[in-house]
Protein backbone atom coordinates (compact mmCIF):
# COMPACT_ATOMS: atom_id res chain seq x y z
CA UNK A 1 0.00 0.00 0.00
CA UNK A 2 2.81 2.39 0.91
CA UNK A 3 4.47 1.79 -2.43
CA UNK A 4 1.26 2.51 -4.31
CA UNK A 5 0.65 5.74 -2.40
CA UNK A 6 4.21 6.84 -3.17
CA UNK A 7 3.65 6.21 -6.87
CA UNK A 8 0.36 8.11 -6.64
CA UNK A 9 2.13 11.09 -5.06
CA UNK A 10 4.62 11.34 -7.95
CA UNK A 11 1.82 11.00 -10.48
CA UNK A 12 -0.16 13.71 -8.68
CA UNK A 13 2.85 16.07 -8.61
CA UNK A 14 3.47 15.65 -12.36
CA UNK A 15 -0.29 15.96 -12.95
CA UNK A 16 -0.42 19.33 -11.14
CA UNK A 17 2.62 20.53 -13.13
CA UNK A 18 0.79 19.83 -16.39
CA UNK A 19 -2.53 21.35 -15.29
CA UNK A 20 -0.69 24.43 -13.97
CA UNK A 21 1.20 24.84 -17.25
CA UNK A 22 -2.17 24.36 -18.98
CA UNK A 23 -3.73 27.18 -16.95
CA UNK A 24 -0.82 29.50 -17.70
CA UNK A 25 -0.97 28.65 -21.43
CA UNK A 26 -4.71 29.41 -21.46
CA UNK A 27 -4.07 32.77 -19.88
CA UNK A 28 -1.37 33.50 -22.48
CA UNK A 29 -3.67 32.32 -25.28
CA UNK A 30 -6.82 34.14 -24.15
CA UNK A 31 -5.33 37.58 -24.80
CA UNK A 32 -4.66 36.57 -28.42
CA UNK A 33 -8.31 35.72 -29.04
CA UNK A 34 -10.43 38.14 -31.01
CA UNK A 35 -14.05 36.97 -30.66
CA UNK A 36 -14.84 38.14 -34.19
CA UNK A 37 -12.08 36.15 -35.86
CA UNK A 38 -12.59 32.46 -35.21
CA UNK A 39 -9.09 31.50 -36.32
CA UNK A 40 -7.62 33.36 -33.33
CA UNK A 41 -9.17 30.70 -31.06
CA UNK A 42 -6.63 28.25 -32.48
CA UNK A 43 -3.57 30.16 -31.34
CA UNK A 44 -0.68 27.99 -30.18
CA UNK A 45 -0.70 28.73 -26.41
CA UNK A 46 -4.47 28.25 -26.14
CA UNK A 47 -4.47 24.92 -28.00
CA UNK A 48 -1.36 23.73 -26.13
CA UNK A 49 -3.19 24.55 -22.91
CA UNK A 50 -5.82 21.95 -23.77
CA UNK A 51 -3.11 19.39 -24.59
CA UNK A 52 -1.40 20.05 -21.25
CA UNK A 53 -4.72 19.72 -19.45
CA UNK A 54 -5.45 16.45 -21.26
CA UNK A 55 -2.11 14.98 -20.17
CA UNK A 56 -2.80 16.25 -16.64
CA UNK A 57 -6.23 14.56 -16.63
CA UNK A 58 -4.73 11.24 -17.77
CA UNK A 59 -2.08 11.44 -15.03
CA UNK A 60 -4.79 12.22 -12.49
CA UNK A 61 -6.68 9.05 -13.45
CA UNK A 62 -3.50 7.04 -12.89
CA UNK A 63 -2.88 8.78 -9.56
CA UNK A 64 -6.45 7.97 -8.49
CA UNK A 65 -5.91 4.36 -9.51
CA UNK A 66 -2.79 3.95 -7.38
CA UNK A 67 -3.46 6.09 -4.35
CA UNK A 68 -6.10 6.76 -1.76
CA UNK A 69 -8.58 9.50 -2.67
CA UNK A 70 -7.97 11.21 0.68
CA UNK A 71 -4.31 11.48 -0.38
CA UNK A 72 -4.48 12.23 -4.11
CA UNK A 73 -7.33 14.74 -4.14
CA UNK A 74 -5.97 17.19 -1.54
CA UNK A 75 -2.51 16.75 -3.08
CA UNK A 76 -3.81 18.45 -6.22
CA UNK A 77 -3.70 21.69 -4.18
CA UNK A 78 0.00 21.67 -5.12
CA UNK A 79 -1.13 23.28 -8.39
CA UNK A 80 -1.62 26.55 -6.45
CA UNK A 81 2.11 26.48 -5.75
CA UNK A 82 3.10 25.91 -9.40
CA UNK A 83 0.66 28.50 -10.74
CA UNK A 84 1.96 31.09 -8.25
CA UNK A 85 5.58 30.40 -9.18
CA UNK A 86 4.91 30.34 -12.94
CA UNK A 87 2.87 33.56 -12.76
CA UNK A 88 5.73 35.24 -10.96
CA UNK A 89 7.90 34.89 -14.08
CA UNK A 90 5.30 35.08 -16.83
CA UNK A 91 2.84 37.70 -15.57
CA UNK A 92 4.79 40.37 -13.68
CA UNK A 93 1.54 42.31 -13.25
CA UNK A 94 0.16 39.40 -11.18
CA UNK A 95 1.91 40.55 -8.07
CA UNK A 96 2.67 38.26 -5.16
CA UNK A 97 2.13 39.51 -1.63
CA UNK A 98 2.59 38.18 1.88
CA UNK A 99 -0.88 36.62 1.94
CA UNK A 100 -0.18 34.63 -1.20
CA UNK A 101 3.35 33.66 -0.16
CA UNK A 102 2.16 32.40 3.23
CA UNK A 103 -0.61 30.44 1.48
CA UNK A 104 1.93 28.86 -0.89
CA UNK A 105 4.28 27.94 1.97
CA UNK A 106 1.45 26.48 4.08
CA UNK A 107 0.30 24.39 1.10
CA UNK A 108 3.85 23.07 0.55
CA UNK A 109 4.08 22.08 4.24
CA UNK A 110 0.58 20.57 4.16
CA UNK A 111 1.06 18.36 1.11
CA UNK A 112 4.34 17.16 2.63
CA UNK A 113 2.45 16.28 5.83
CA UNK A 114 -0.18 14.55 3.73
CA UNK A 115 2.43 12.37 2.03
CA UNK A 116 4.06 11.65 5.38
CA UNK A 117 0.71 10.83 7.00
CA UNK A 118 -0.22 8.44 4.21
CA UNK A 119 2.96 6.45 4.77
CA UNK A 120 2.13 6.10 8.47
CA UNK A 121 -1.48 5.10 8.07
CA UNK A 122 -1.45 2.08 10.34
CA UNK A 123 0.56 3.66 13.13
CA UNK A 124 -1.47 6.69 14.13
CA UNK A 125 -5.16 6.28 13.61
CA UNK A 126 -8.39 7.54 15.09
CA UNK A 127 -10.35 4.38 14.41
CA UNK A 128 -11.19 2.06 17.27
CA UNK A 129 -9.75 -1.48 17.42
CA UNK A 130 -13.27 -2.79 16.90
CA UNK A 131 -14.07 -0.46 14.03
Amino acid at each position, binding site marked *: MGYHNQKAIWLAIICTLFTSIGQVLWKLGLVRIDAHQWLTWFNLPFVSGFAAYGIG*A*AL*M*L*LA*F*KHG*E*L*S*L*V*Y*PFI*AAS*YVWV*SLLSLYLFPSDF*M*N*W*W*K*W*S*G*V*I*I*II*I*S*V*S*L*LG*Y*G*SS*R*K*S*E*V*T*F*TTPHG
Partner: protein
Amino acid sequence: MVKYLALLLVLIATLIGAVGALTLKKATSNHTFREMLFNSKVWVGFFLYGLSTIFYILALRMEQLSVVYPLVSLSYLWTTSLSIKFLGEKMNVWKYLALGGIIVGVTLIGVGS
Protein backbone atom coordinates in the same frame (compact mmCIF):
# COMPACT_ATOMS: atom_id res chain seq x y z
CA MET B 1 -21.47 43.24 0.21
CA VAL B 2 -21.01 39.53 -0.37
CA LYS B 3 -23.28 38.07 -3.03
CA TYR B 4 -24.92 35.05 -1.45
CA LEU B 5 -25.89 33.54 -4.81
CA ALA B 6 -22.17 33.34 -5.67
CA LEU B 7 -21.45 31.55 -2.39
CA LEU B 8 -24.27 29.10 -3.07
CA LEU B 9 -22.92 28.43 -6.58
CA VAL B 10 -19.40 27.74 -5.24
CA LEU B 11 -20.83 25.45 -2.57
CA ILE B 12 -22.71 23.48 -5.25
CA ALA B 13 -19.54 23.43 -7.39
CA THR B 14 -17.48 21.93 -4.56
CA LEU B 15 -20.12 19.28 -3.79
CA ILE B 16 -20.44 18.23 -7.45
CA GLY B 17 -16.63 18.20 -7.77
CA ALA B 18 -16.30 15.95 -4.72
CA VAL B 19 -18.84 13.47 -6.08
CA GLY B 20 -16.96 13.62 -9.40
CA ALA B 21 -13.69 12.75 -7.66
CA LEU B 22 -15.32 9.83 -5.84
CA THR B 23 -16.78 8.59 -9.15
CA LEU B 24 -13.37 8.81 -10.83
CA LYS B 25 -11.64 7.01 -7.96
CA LYS B 26 -14.19 4.18 -8.07
CA ALA B 27 -13.88 3.94 -11.84
CA THR B 28 -10.07 3.75 -11.88
CA SER B 29 -9.27 1.30 -9.06
CA ASN B 30 -8.05 -2.05 -10.39
CA HIS B 31 -8.38 -1.02 -14.03
CA THR B 32 -5.75 -0.56 -16.73
CA PHE B 33 -5.52 2.82 -18.41
CA ARG B 34 -7.08 1.42 -21.60
CA GLU B 35 -10.03 0.05 -19.62
CA MET B 36 -10.50 3.45 -17.97
CA LEU B 37 -10.91 5.23 -21.31
CA PHE B 38 -13.80 2.92 -22.22
CA ASN B 39 -15.38 3.01 -18.78
CA SER B 40 -18.50 5.18 -18.81
CA LYS B 41 -18.04 5.95 -15.09
CA VAL B 42 -14.79 7.76 -15.94
CA TRP B 43 -16.68 10.00 -18.36
CA VAL B 44 -19.44 10.56 -15.80
CA GLY B 45 -16.68 11.64 -13.41
CA PHE B 46 -15.21 14.06 -15.95
CA PHE B 47 -18.70 15.35 -16.78
CA LEU B 48 -19.25 16.12 -13.08
CA TYR B 49 -15.88 17.93 -13.01
CA GLY B 50 -16.95 19.98 -16.01
CA LEU B 51 -20.32 20.76 -14.44
CA SER B 52 -18.59 21.83 -11.24
CA THR B 53 -16.31 24.13 -13.28
CA ILE B 54 -19.35 25.82 -14.89
CA PHE B 55 -20.84 26.61 -11.44
CA TYR B 56 -17.43 27.86 -10.33
CA ILE B 57 -17.04 30.17 -13.34
CA LEU B 58 -20.57 31.55 -12.82
CA ALA B 59 -19.67 32.32 -9.20
CA LEU B 60 -16.39 33.98 -10.25
CA ARG B 61 -18.31 36.32 -12.53
CA MET B 62 -20.16 37.63 -9.46
CA GLU B 63 -17.59 37.55 -6.72
CA GLN B 64 -13.88 38.10 -6.15
CA LEU B 65 -11.33 35.34 -5.62
CA SER B 66 -10.88 36.42 -2.01
CA VAL B 67 -14.49 35.40 -1.33
CA VAL B 68 -14.61 32.37 -3.62
CA TYR B 69 -11.31 30.62 -2.74
CA PRO B 70 -12.02 29.95 0.95
CA LEU B 71 -15.18 28.12 -0.12
CA VAL B 72 -13.41 26.28 -2.95
CA SER B 73 -11.07 24.80 -0.36
CA LEU B 74 -14.07 23.06 1.20
CA SER B 75 -13.96 20.61 -1.73
CA TYR B 76 -10.96 18.98 0.00
CA LEU B 77 -13.08 18.48 3.12
CA TRP B 78 -16.00 16.96 1.17
CA THR B 79 -13.76 14.64 -0.83
CA THR B 80 -11.94 13.42 2.27
CA SER B 81 -15.26 12.80 4.03
CA LEU B 82 -16.52 10.80 1.04
CA SER B 83 -13.24 8.80 1.03
CA ILE B 84 -13.76 7.85 4.66
CA LYS B 85 -17.45 7.03 4.28
CA PHE B 86 -17.56 5.25 0.93
CA LEU B 87 -14.01 3.95 0.40
CA GLY B 88 -13.18 3.08 4.00
CA GLU B 89 -9.97 5.12 3.88
CA LYS B 90 -8.26 5.71 7.20
CA MET B 91 -7.24 9.13 8.50
CA ASN B 92 -4.59 10.03 11.04
CA VAL B 93 -3.34 13.14 12.82
CA TRP B 94 -0.96 14.05 9.96
CA LYS B 95 -3.60 13.78 7.28
CA TYR B 96 -6.07 15.90 9.31
CA LEU B 97 -3.35 18.53 9.91
CA ALA B 98 -2.56 18.51 6.19
CA LEU B 99 -6.23 18.91 5.27
CA GLY B 100 -6.60 21.87 7.64
CA GLY B 101 -3.36 23.40 6.34
CA ILE B 102 -4.46 23.12 2.71
CA ILE B 103 -7.77 24.83 3.52
CA VAL B 104 -5.90 27.65 5.33
CA GLY B 105 -3.34 27.91 2.51
CA VAL B 106 -5.91 28.17 -0.29
CA THR B 107 -7.87 30.71 1.80
CA LEU B 108 -4.74 32.85 2.26
CA ILE B 109 -4.02 32.81 -1.49
CA GLY B 110 -7.63 33.93 -2.03
CA VAL B 111 -7.30 36.74 0.53
CA GLY B 112 -4.14 37.98 -1.19
CA SER B 113 -5.67 37.89 -4.67
